[in-house]
């Protein structure tokens, strides 16, 4: 059984690998081929539904056992929820994209990235070893980067892709650091092994920094304030991507992480208050910012930010209610938000605009789209009897029963949640009412309106398109219709999913199975009152939106986290440039000076420290012939520097090499001597060949300081090299393994020449790497020189 799980994880990657081939055979029908993969995976993962075991399947394949890095596939309730989300929404999105993507798009690239993402995301939720989890975590960032930048000719796509990459990868690195600290505290990278040492970790001094770093990873991925800025920028991606990665799956990876780690690290006030504060502020600000968007997709992006802020504290609280509420809302949010994204994509597709102020009266022109849109948006607002209502009630109920007792903080979380829900209602009504029932405003009356790049400005009238808009072909509506169907069904009868999935998720996150708590009929109580306040105040806000718009706009834009991001980016560029200017002079001699100087300083420091610490110098007696040869080496080296004519300097340099190979002969290393001779001969020829390119050597006119630095670095390097070799011989910390080679060269390698047997047999892998490097070097040298020749040719002709 576990083998199937491994196949399930590898399937998307394998499919991504053959996409280019499949594209040749299938052409525009490629999407149908891709569609089979998420559907098959979805069906596979569905078979696990039903029981609420803590862990369904677990198997470990060794990868780097010496470092504790293994491929531990683990399927528990939490990962089951996410695998279903990834493959289920994945199927719908792929199906939708078949109709969404135009005939000119690069399908092969698109589906390769989508499959890559699917596999990476499955890896994140299925792998239990922290290092492998981290690897797949970063893979999702990379595939997201590629997908956001899919329309790479547009600058906003590139900027959005870069922004999301920088922020999420920064978070990913923090995550890696957090994992490393966990390893220090708990002595393992395996999640289950760490669980057994839970108390040890909780009492460790590394607990708080590790948790903070893991939070940084989770919050950047799940777009929590102040890292939320990448999500609106990511809306430059094609709409199927936004629906898939940036509303349903990838942005929930942070939630997954917090849910997973709450079992290990949760249950402390630090954990709860940090998660709840970030989440609540995000919920509030996301909702507020969503209200002032004019682009439908941007509105959905901020709404996603806000909803993520609603879910995240649920897994920080660690109560039965909250875990259940969080699990339910992950699925519920994925259904209505996925549907909304696809519907907005349809509207964009049919009317060629996503501007809220241009759209209106879609109820009559696109009735089916409008109906689905209204249901999904009302569910987001939390209207009975849709699924948004069910999970929101539970969330409010959970918020009212905080784990460490009510205090001023928990009350402020409640207030922020209600306020955020008021905004949610208001922007949901924009989707459910304004663009469906509102008037169509002539484009020229809209301030700040700019025509899309690809369209001819003179002949473009947005109204024309809005007027002529109609429902898309049925297959395109199928995905959103299925999701909206779920919105309704889960609103009326969510109980099967509760007992088969939500409880399992909560069990995986809490360690114990919670009681049934979902209710679909309104129950008189505080949660219902909060919902009613949110709906009523939200409706009021929507009606008076024109009046409060000025107030909304008044929030200074320079407080945006974007300002911070751009300042950081600018500083980074400036620092990099200044480093560049000091170091990258374009003169080889400077590069050598910096590099060798740094080596001398670093190694010199440790040599001096080592010598003071009692390193021994154990030197062998020197024979007369060695003295003669070494003396000649020294003479040759000095001559090479002092002589100012090329041929003599070259001969002096060659004599150094010849003497060194003579020394090898003294020391019974004929292979080395031969190699050294050959290298010497060839490099001499090489220098002769390039002679005609070298400028005439003239008297050095460098400043005294520069020369002094050169001399100091050169002498220092020589001194250091001789000290290192002398010390290395005198201080043996490990037993030499050379006797193994001597003994086994003939019996195991079948060769009397130990050097060669080592090269081709004992250390064959090293040689393999070396010849690969050599090939790459040859290729690059050729490419560089060819490019030079070509550019010079271009200049002269």
């Amino acid at each position, binding site marked *: 059984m576990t083998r199937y799980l491994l196949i399930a994880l590898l399937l998307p990657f394998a499919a991504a690998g053959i996409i280019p081939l499949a594209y040749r055979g299938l052409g525009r029908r490629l999407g149908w081929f891709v569609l089979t993969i998420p559907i098959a995976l979805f069906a596979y993962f569905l078979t696990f539904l039903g029981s609420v075991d803590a862990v369904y399947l677990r198997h470990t394949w060794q990868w780097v056992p010496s470092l504790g890095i293994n491929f531990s596939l683990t399927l528990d309730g939490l990962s089951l929820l996410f695998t279903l989300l990834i493959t289920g929404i994945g199927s719908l999105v792929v199906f939708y994209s078949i109709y969404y993507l135009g005939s000119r798009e690069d399908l092969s690239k698109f589906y390769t990235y989508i499959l890559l993402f699917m596999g990476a995301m499955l890896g994140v939720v299925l792998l239990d070893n922290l290092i492998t989890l981290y690897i797949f975590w970063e893979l999702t960032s990379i595939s997201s980067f590629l997908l956001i930048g899919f329309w790479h000719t547009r600058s906003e796509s590139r900027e959005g892709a870069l922004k999301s990459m920088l922020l999420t990868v920064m978070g990913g690195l923090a995550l890696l650091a957090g994992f490393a600290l966990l390893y220090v505290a708990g002595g393992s990278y395996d999640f289950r092994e760490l669980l057994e040492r839970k108390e040890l970790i909780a009492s460790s001094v590394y607990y708080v920094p590790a948790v903070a770093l893991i939070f940084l990873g989770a919050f950047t991925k799940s777009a929590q304030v102040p890292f939320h800025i990448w999500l609106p920028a990511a809306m430059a991606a094609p709409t199927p991507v936004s629906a898939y990665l940036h509303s349903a799956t990838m942005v929930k990876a942070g939630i997954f992480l917090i849910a997973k780690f709450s079992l290990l690290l949760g249950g402390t006030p630090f954990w709860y208050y940090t998660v709840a504060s970030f989440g609540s502020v995000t919920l509030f600000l996301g909702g507020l910012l969503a209200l002032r968007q004019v682009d439908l997709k941007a509105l959905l992006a901020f709404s996603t930010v806000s909803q993520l802020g609603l879910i995240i504290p649920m897994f920080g609280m660690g109560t039965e209610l909250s875990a259940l509420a969080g699990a339910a809302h992950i699925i519920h949010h994925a259904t209505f938000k996925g549907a909304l994204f696809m519907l907005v994509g349809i509207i964009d597709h049919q009317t060629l605009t996503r501007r809220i102020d241009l759209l209106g009266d879609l109820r009559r022109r696109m009735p089916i789209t409008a109906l689905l849109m209204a249901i999904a948006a009302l569910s987001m607002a939390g209207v009975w009897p849709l699924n948004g209502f069910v999970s929101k009630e539970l969330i409010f109920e959970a918020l009212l029963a905080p784990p460490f007792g009510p205090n001023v903080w928990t009350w402020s979380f409640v207030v922020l949640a209600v306020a955020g829900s008021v905004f949610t209602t208001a922007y949901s009504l924009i989707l459910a009412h304004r663009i469906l029932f509102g008037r169509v405003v002539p484009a020229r009356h809209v301030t700040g309106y700019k025509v899309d790049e690809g369209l001819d400005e003179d002949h473009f009238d947005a109204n024309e398109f809005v007027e002529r808009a109609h429902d898309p072909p049925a297959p395109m509506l199928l995905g959103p219709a299925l999701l909206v169907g779920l919105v309704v069904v889960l609103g009326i009868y969510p109980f099967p999913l509760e007992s088969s999935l939500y409880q399992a998720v909560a069990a995986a996150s809490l360690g114990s199975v919670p009681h049934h708590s979902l209710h679909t009929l309104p129950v008189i109580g505080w949660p219902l009152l909060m919902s009613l306040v949110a709906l009523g105040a939200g409706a009021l806000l929507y009606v008076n939106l024109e009046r409060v718009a000025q107030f909304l706009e008044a929030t200074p834009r320079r407080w945006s986290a974007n300002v911070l991001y751009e300042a950081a980016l600018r500083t980074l560029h400036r620092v990099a440039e200044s480093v560049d200017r000091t170091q990258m002079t374009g003169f080889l001699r400077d590069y050598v000076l910096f590099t060798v100087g740094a080596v001398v300083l670093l190694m010199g420091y440790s040599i001096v420290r080592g010598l003071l610490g009692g390193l021994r110098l154990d030197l062998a007696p020197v024979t007369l012939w060695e003295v003669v040869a070494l003396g000649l080496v020294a003479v040759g080296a000095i001559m090479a520097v002092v002589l100012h004519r090329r041929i003599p300097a070259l001969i002096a340099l060659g004599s150094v090499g010849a003497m060194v190979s003579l020394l090898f002969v003294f020391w019974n290393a004929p292979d080395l001597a031969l190699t050294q001779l050959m290298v010497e001969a060839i490099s001499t020829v090489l220098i002769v060949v390039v002679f005609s390119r070298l400028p005439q050597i003239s008297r050095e006119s460098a400043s005294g300081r520069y020369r002094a630095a050169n001399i100091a670095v050169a002498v220092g390097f020589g001194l250091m090299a001789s000290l290192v070799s002398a010390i290395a011989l005198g201080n043996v910390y490990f037993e030499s393994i050379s006797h193994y080679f001597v003994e086994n060269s003939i019996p195991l*390698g079948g060769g009397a020449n130990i050097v*060669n047997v080592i090269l081709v047999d004992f250390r*064959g*892998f090293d040689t*393999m790497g070396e*010849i690969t490097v050599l090939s790459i070097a*040859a290729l690059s040298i050729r490419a560089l*020189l060819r490019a030079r020749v070509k550019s010079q040719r271009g200049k002269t002709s």
Partner: protein
Amino acid sequence: MNMLILRTVSPIHLYIMTLFAVHLLLRGHNAPGGGFIAGLLTVAAIILQAVAFNSRHAENLLPIPAGWFLGIGLLLAAGTGLGPALTGAPFLDQTFTHVNLPFFGDVEVTTALFFDLGVYLVVVGAGKWILLTIADERRTEDEHQGEQPSGG
């Protein structure tokens, strides 16, 4: 410069050096030598021709493009590694056997020789490519500046 002597002697050298390189390659497992040294020696032989005549002449001595040497050499080396891996032995596990050939007598055959041959081909390919590209650049530049090639 009068290159008459060099030009007369170097073709003969080509054979001697190449033959010696093959000798070094084959005996490498048991006596000083091996793919790397043999490769360098072959490169030196080619370079000698480039110096004595010109780089185009040297290039035409082996009409197979240098890139092929790199590719075939790498494939050969990796192939000898993959062979044992397919039978369950570790990657790059080498083996050897003795065969009795007429005339040569007892000859040791090692899989390591094929690996070494791969190393040899890569070194020859890389060396030839790098040196001839540099020489070639000089040539094209000389042609552009309308100067005589300095070899003449």
